[in-house]
């Protein structure tokens, strides 16, 4: 683990001498090969929420979680690569908000820049919090650092490391580290899956142990009540597959920034497509461990679940419930009194978030265990670093340069970028502690993210593919879409939830079978309202001159010249290949 930290900072130092202009710092000088960007592209997204959350849902819901990858990411990644990247890369915009200013106007950009900056700070704070909490729960530094300081030490240590390498090497350093993290994550989790599968008797063994709805991704999707997610296929395809995933992968600067660092437009278009290939197979690395964890029965030798329980000295053997298998998943422990948490019916609550960490402790002997834990930490850091680099760019270009100091020299902006990095990390630490102190803030933040993100894609879609769209239209559409999301959330409620944080704070007019269904439908409403309002207002206002929009709108931009490439080098060929593998995967696990 120490080796890893040394390398991480070493890269920062090695790259420091290449950071001469702000362009080098924020856009990596636009000189990174496509495959490196592609790996960074998924690694930046592979943060804490991803690894822990997907392992947890794998354990809780089953292979159906892979929809978040196969429906919720791949089509959007193919779309952004084939259709949208030429505008981001070709318009010479340096960030996504800057593209909005070039295409629409200043106010649309301001809304996007500010909401994005705030969200990145909070998500990197959440990442930090989750990591520190995990280190504390697993007792990694137990015996080295006094218990009550572990949380603080973890927060500050991770902050300093991330700060160090970004401060020194900017985006290049972040991208390089993300590639390292990607390989480490694969190297750490691949043997885990292999040994785990051997233990439970392969995929067939999992199928025997678990109920069938956990091993088939499409079974029961016709109706919400017959599958584990509680979502019907319309909500899944439209909400997750179209609005939410396109809104994230096509407009979030966090991931787009990686593609913008590529060395040419063709490379930039290939970035999300290359990223899509490993992304498709990630369910096997992060969801399968969750499934294996619930398949493993407790008579295995040396159950580490007991190790974790030992602190509470409960040592109980809970009978395996056929309906909700939990395997080696430990019970949730109340951090205050150290007692197992019980739900309202008096049943123990299982802490699915620990699915992957527990798997690591269960199967890895000393030695490779260090690698596994390093991989886990690497995933946290890559998510954090991604947010910090996106924050410093948006802050410097879209907030500082746009509104505070318009005439600084390039060296000044480079300096500002470094300061913004420090500022972003400090704010993230603040956010991490805010999350610690208020129990509900995590839910609230995720809610705010979904409400702000949901309507965004409509704005970009119209902006890029309809030249008539105007700045006023985009701005009002964006605001109306966000408002629609809020109102929809206020009027609906998932069943078995009380009005309040989960919705229904205006009045309850509709019940959804699960909060996931509610979330998807909120996105669908926000998207539709934004679409309609943007079109309406655009038709009523005066469009911009067509000459101003060349390079920004599909119909006015010359098609990228690909004549010199052989067919297998073209992004579209890659895209078709990616989609073909996707269909095969869906059929295999249908």
């Amino acid at each position, binding site marked *: 683990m120490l*080796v*890893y930290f040394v*390398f991480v900072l*070493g*890269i920062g130092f*090695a*790259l420091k*001498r*290449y950071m001469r202009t702000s362009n080098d710092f924020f856009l*990596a*000088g636009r*000189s*990174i*090969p496509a495959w*490196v960007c592609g790996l960074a592209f998924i690694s930046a997204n592979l943060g804490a929420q991803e690894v822990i959350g997907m392992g947890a849902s794998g354990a809780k819901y089953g292979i159906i979680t892979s929809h978040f990858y196969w429906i919720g990411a791949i089509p959007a990644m193919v779309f952004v690569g084939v259709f949208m990247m030429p505008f981001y890369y070709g318009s010479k915009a340096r960030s996504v908000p800057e593209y909005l200013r070039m295409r629409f106007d200043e106010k649309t950009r301001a809304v996007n820049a500010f909401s994005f900056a705030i969200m990145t700070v909070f998500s990197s704070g959440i990442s930090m919090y989750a990591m520190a909490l995990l280190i504390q729960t697993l007792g990694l530094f137990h015996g080295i650092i006094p218990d009550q300081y572990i949380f603080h030490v973890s927060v500050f240590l991770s902050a300093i490391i991330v700060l160090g390498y970004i401060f020194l090497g900017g985006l*290049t350093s972040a991208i*390089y580290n993300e*590639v*390292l993290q990607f*390989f*480490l994550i694969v*190297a750490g989790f691949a*043997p885990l899956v292999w*040994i785990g599968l*051997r*233990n439970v008797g392969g995929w067939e063994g999992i199928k025997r142990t678990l109920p069938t709805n956990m091993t088939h991704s499409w079974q029961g999707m016709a109706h919400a009540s017959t599958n584990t997610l509680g979502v019907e296929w319309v909500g899944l395809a439209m909400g997750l597959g179209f609005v939410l995933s396109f809104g994230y992968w096509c407009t979030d600067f966090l991931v787009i920034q990686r593609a913008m660092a590529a060395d040419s437009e063709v490379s930039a278009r290939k970035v999300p497509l290359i990223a899509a290939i490993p992304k498709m197979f990630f369910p096997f690395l992060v969801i399968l461990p969750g499934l294996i964890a619930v398949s493993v029965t407790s008579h295995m*030798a*040396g159950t580490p679940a007991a190790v974790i329980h030992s602190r509470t000295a409960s040592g109980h053997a809970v009978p395996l419930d056929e309906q909700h298998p939990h395997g080696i998943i430990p019970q949730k422990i109340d951090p205050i009194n150290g007692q197992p948490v019980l739900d309202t019916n008096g049943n123990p609550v299982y802490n699915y978030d620990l699915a992957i960490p527990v798997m690591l402790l*269960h*199967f*890895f*002997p*000393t*030695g*490779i265990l260090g*690698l596994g834990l390093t991989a886990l930490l690497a995933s946290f850091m890559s998510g954090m670093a991604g947010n910090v680099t996106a924050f410093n760019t948006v802050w410097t270009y879209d907030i500082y340069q746009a509104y505070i100091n318009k005439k600084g020299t390039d060296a000044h902006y480079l300096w500002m970028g470094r300061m913004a990095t420090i500022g972003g990390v400090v704010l993230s630490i603040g956010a991490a502690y805010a999350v610690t102190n208020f129990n509900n803030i995590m839910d609230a933040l995720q809610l705010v993210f979904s409400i702000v993100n949901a309507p965004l894609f409509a704005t970009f879609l119209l902006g890029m593919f309809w030249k008539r769209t105007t700045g006023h239209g985009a701005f009002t559409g964006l605001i109306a879409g966000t408002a629609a999301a809020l109102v929809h959330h206020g009027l609906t409620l998932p069943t078995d939830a009380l009005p309040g944080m989960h919705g229904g704070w205006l009045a309850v007019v509709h019940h959804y079978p699960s909060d996931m269904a509610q979330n998807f439908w909120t996105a669908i409403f926000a998207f539709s309202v934004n679409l309609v309002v943007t079109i309406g207002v655009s038709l009523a206002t005066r469009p911009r001159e067509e000459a101003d929009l060349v390079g920004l709108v599909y119909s006015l931009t010359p098609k990228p010249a690909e004549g010199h490439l052989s067919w297998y080098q073209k992004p579209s060929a890659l895209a078709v290949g990616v989609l073909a593998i996707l269909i095969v995967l869906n059929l295999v696990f249908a």
Partner: protein
Amino acid sequence: MGLDIRIPLGLIFLAIGGMMSIFGLITRGSATIYEKSMGINLNLTWGAIMFVFGLVMFLIGRRKKWQDDPVTPRPWERGTGIRH
């Protein structure tokens, strides 16, 4: 960029893979350590795999170093004068 990513990538895998293999070699007779992984010496096998991967990456990175180096002239540019 002047630094090919494959070099640090190779180095880190060489280092970690090497350490794991050596640890695996020393502890290969120990039944207690490998009880968890069902008697398979994961340290030795996976460490060796990582070591080989690291070696391949490192060598490729070294061989192709000139490709990504902005300062030293590329092979086909040599003799045509000073760049930048």
